[in-house]
C-alpha cells in the first residue's frame, strides 16, 4: 500500500493543476446562459416506430418514425446522418396550390415541448440520397437524428414497403 502513496499524491496534484488550467481557459470565454441551461437538460427525446423504405444501391429512399419530446423545453430536428448513403437530409413532401406534389429539403423542424413530431408518408421524412448498398425488405439499418438540444439520437429501423406491412419487428432507439 505504501508504494502507491507517491503516485496517489502525484495524481491529486496533477488534477488540481489541470483543473486550474481549465478554469483559466473557461474564464476567458463567456458561455451563454442559454447554452449552459440546454447542456444541463436531459436529452428528453425518444423515437419509436422507425422504418425505412426499400431502395437500391445508387438510388434514394426514405425513413419514417415518431419523435417525442419528453422535456419542458422545445427542441429542433436539425438533420440526420448515416453511413448508408452519400447524403442524408430531412425532407418534406408538399402539395402545390394547383395540387401537384413536390419534395424539398427542410433544414430544421421544431419539436414542441412535450410534443410529438411524426415523420410519415406524405409529410416529413429522412431522405437517404444515393444509397451505398441495397436496402432490402426485412433488413435493419442504423442512422442518427440530430437535435439542437437533444444531440444525436441513434436509431435502428427495419425495412418494409409500408407501415404495418408484414413485418412484426418494430424499429427502435439504440440502447
Amino acid at each position, binding site marked *: 500500500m505504501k508504494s502507491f502513496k507517491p503516485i496517489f499524491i502525484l495524481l491529486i496534484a496533477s488534477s488540481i493543476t489541470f483543473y486550474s488550467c481549465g478554469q483559466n481557459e473557461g474564464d476567458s470565454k463567456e458561455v451563454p446562459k442559454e447554452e449552459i441551461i440546454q447542456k444541463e437538460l436531459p436529452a428528453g427525446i425518444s423515437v419509436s416506430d422507425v422504418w425505412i423504405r426499400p431502395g437500391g444501391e445508387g438510388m434514394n429512399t426514405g425513413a419514417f418514425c415518431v419523435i417525442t419530446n419528453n422535456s419542458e423545453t422545445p427542441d429542433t430536428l436539425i438533420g440526420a446522418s448515416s453511413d448508408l448513403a*452519400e447524403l442524408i437530409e430531412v425532407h418534406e413532401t408538399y402539395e402545390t396550390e394547383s395540387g*401537384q406534389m*413536390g419534395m424539398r429539403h427542410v433544414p430544421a423542424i421544431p419539436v414542441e415541448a412535450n410534443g410529438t413530431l411524426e415523420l410519415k*408518408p406524405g409529410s416529413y*421524412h429522412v431522405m437517404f*440520397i444515393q444509397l451505398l448498398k441495397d436496402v432490402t*425488405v426485412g433488413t435493419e439499418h442504423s442512422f442518427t437524428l440530430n437535435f439542437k438540444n437533444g444531440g444525436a439520437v441513434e436509431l435502428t429501423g427495419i425495412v418494409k414497403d409500408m407501415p404495418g406491412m408484414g413485418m412484426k419487428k418494430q424499429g427502435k432507439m439504440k440502447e
Partner: protein
Amino acid sequence: MKKILLLTGLSLFVWGCNNLEVIEDLSDDQYKFINQDSSAVNFPEKYKGKIVVMGFIFTNCPDICPLTTNNMRLIQERVKEEGIENVQFVSLSFDPDFDTPAILKKYAELRSLDLSNWEFLTGDIDDIHSLLKTVQVFAVKGDSSVTPKGNVIQYYIHTDRIALIDQESVIRKNHFGSKANIEEIVDGIKSLD
C-alpha cells in the same frame, strides 16, 4: 352536328353501361417506350383489349411514388382475388435520365412486385412528355440535392395520378395515386370488365 350527336349518344351509352366518363381517347396515339427488360413497347397499342391501370412515377422519389406503386400492388392483389384476368398494370417514369430499364427492374425487384401483368416503362424524353401532355400529367424539375461528390439528384413536382384506361385505350377515370381508394378503382375495373 351529326358527329356531336353521335359522340353524345355514344358517351351516354357508355356512361349508362359503367358510369365511367370518357376522359381522353388514346386509341389513335402511338408512343414508343421500353420496359424494364429493355423490350420495345408501343403504347397504347400493346395493351389494346386489356383494362390498363397506369401510374406515373420517378424512382428517386422516396415518398409519393412508392405510395402510388404500393397502391397499384394492392389493386393488382384485389383484381387477382376477384378473378379478373384482363388487366395490365403500367408504371411510366417521367425521369428517363435516371430511370433506365435496369433501375426500373431493380425498383420492382426490391418491392417483390409481380411483373406477370405489370410493366415499368421509360424511353425518350420527348415521347414521355408528349404522352404526359395528352393525359394532362404534370412533371417538371423542382428542387435537387447535391451529394458531397457533386452529383446532382433531381426531384420533380408532379401530378399524383393513377389512370384507369379501358380496352379501347380510352382513359375513363383519373384517381390520386398516393391516396388512391383501392376499392373504388377495383369497382371501376369491374365495371369495365
